[in-house]
């Protein structure tokens, strides 16, 4: 096949062309949502958790994406990275681990990897709440940041609407 030029890493393109693990997961145990203030991309993450030898494992995961090529590629990649891993392991994943798999992204697109990870961690947070379990400190911190970001989006949106009314 002719080699095409893309401004994004090959791994991302591969996943974009043939995405895996995208869509809605039926009978999910928990859902996590994340959006980004800069471009308005929105990601929802569904997880199904099962216990094996006393450990909680992500048995299945699916993501829904309203976003660009990189957001779609990373979401697909992340679902494949996470499936079958324990929750403890998944909580250790950082954006750098994703970037290690993809290769460097244009700086303007790095937030897409943060976004996918946020949605995943939110899903785990909601899973803990649902099960009445104590949420690890680290996860609480992530949750606070995600909520703050979402509030900023809403605020920005409200300001935008106000500005629009003023202009009309």
């Amino acid at each position: 096949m002719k080699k095409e030029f893309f401004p994004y890493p090959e791994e991302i393109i591969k996943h974009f062309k043939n995405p895996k693990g995208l869509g809605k997961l039926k009978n999910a145990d928990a859902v996590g949502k994340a959006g980004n203030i800069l471009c308005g991309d929105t990601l929802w993450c569904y997880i199904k958790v099962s216990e094996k030898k006393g450990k909680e494992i992500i048995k299945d995961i699916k993501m829904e994406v309203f976003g660009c090529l990189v957001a779609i590629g990373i979401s697909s990649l992340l679902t494949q990275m996470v499936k079958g891993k324990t929750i403890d392991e998944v909580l250790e994943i950082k954006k750098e681990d994703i970037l290690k798999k993809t290769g460097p992204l244009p700086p303007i697109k790095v937030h897409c990897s943060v976004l996918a990870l946020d949605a995943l961690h939110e899903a785990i947070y909601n899973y803990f709440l649902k099960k009445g379990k104590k949420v690890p400190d680290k996860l609480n911190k992530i949750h606070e940041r995600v909520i703050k970001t979402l509030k900023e989006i809403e605020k920005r949106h409200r300001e935008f609407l106000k500005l629009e009314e003023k202009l009309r």
Partner: protein
Amino acid sequence: MDYAATTPVDPRVLKVMLPYFSKKFGNSMSLYSLGREAKKALEDSREKIANLINANSNEIIFTGSATESNNLAIKGVAFANREKGKHIIVSSIEDHCILNSVEWLKKQGFEVTYLKVDKFGMVDLNELENSIRKDTILVSVMHANNEIGTIEPIKEIGEICKEHGVYFHTDAAQSFGKILVDVEKFNVDLLTASSHKIYGPKGVGCLFVREGIKIEPLLHGGGHEFGLRSSTVNVAGIVGFAEAAEIAKKEMKREGKRLEKLRRKLEKGILKIENSHLNGHPEKRLPNISNFWFDFIEGEALVMYLDQKGIAASTGSACSSESLEPSHVLLAIGLKPHQAQGSLRLSIGRFTKDKEVNYVLKVLPEVVEKLRKISPFKGKWS
């Protein structure tokens, strides 16, 4: 499906250009026969372009692009007339080369008024008239918009400017060669046209500057182009531009009708997709540009999946821009950012056939469906 971005060079154009790369390679400033040959080709081309827009040949300045023409018009007029005033009026849906030029002028002490547009992208003539001040030196409103294709009331704007004694510039990069452009009829003082949008080579544009208009050059040097644009003349490119313009003019009526028919078929088919919307003016629009938005999906992903299927298109989505901001044109006509995210521009041209429109109508609904399947938003935004 992206002829509004650029067009291939028509084989007829390439044929007349070729000798000027090799055998007739002279510098139009040289005195010997090779130079005079180049000079003649340059002046013949100038004459051709002038005739096409109803101007005199000494009113045509060849440049390196429409962007350069727009920069020359805006900055050149601003600096030559700053004793008269420092106020400039532009529409809010101009190309970035106009908007960024006036933004830069603001830093040099000029003042700028941006005209709003309605939901179809039309400027309001009353607002324009009310915006003109004693110190207004220039109004710049594009002839037809590059994203949504809306055609502005140029003739009326020209009349208002003439009445108030204000220079009027129009960016006709998208309209020139596709619909009638007549500087007398439109009362324009300066007009930008481009070669690569009309099957001519890239790297050539021109600016019409009405005789008597006060304007400063941006490029100083050997005094080419009546002292307004020094640079060794790109003779091959200019010859190609003139040939492309002549062909476009000759075929305009028939080709315009053909394209409009194809475009309407395309739009009718695409709007059958659920939650799809047409942007731009329903009637006063270029024959070749359609702009849509599809709810619940993002434009860059849409464009890239279409690319996989061999369809070239463009989007006003924030994700596809360097600034992560959605298209200023789509926001100006009242789209919310998440709606502009799902926008798609399809533009057809000389080599688009019925077969290609049918292919798009088959593939596009499938791609939209594919993206909606993976979108968190199903049938509503929540």
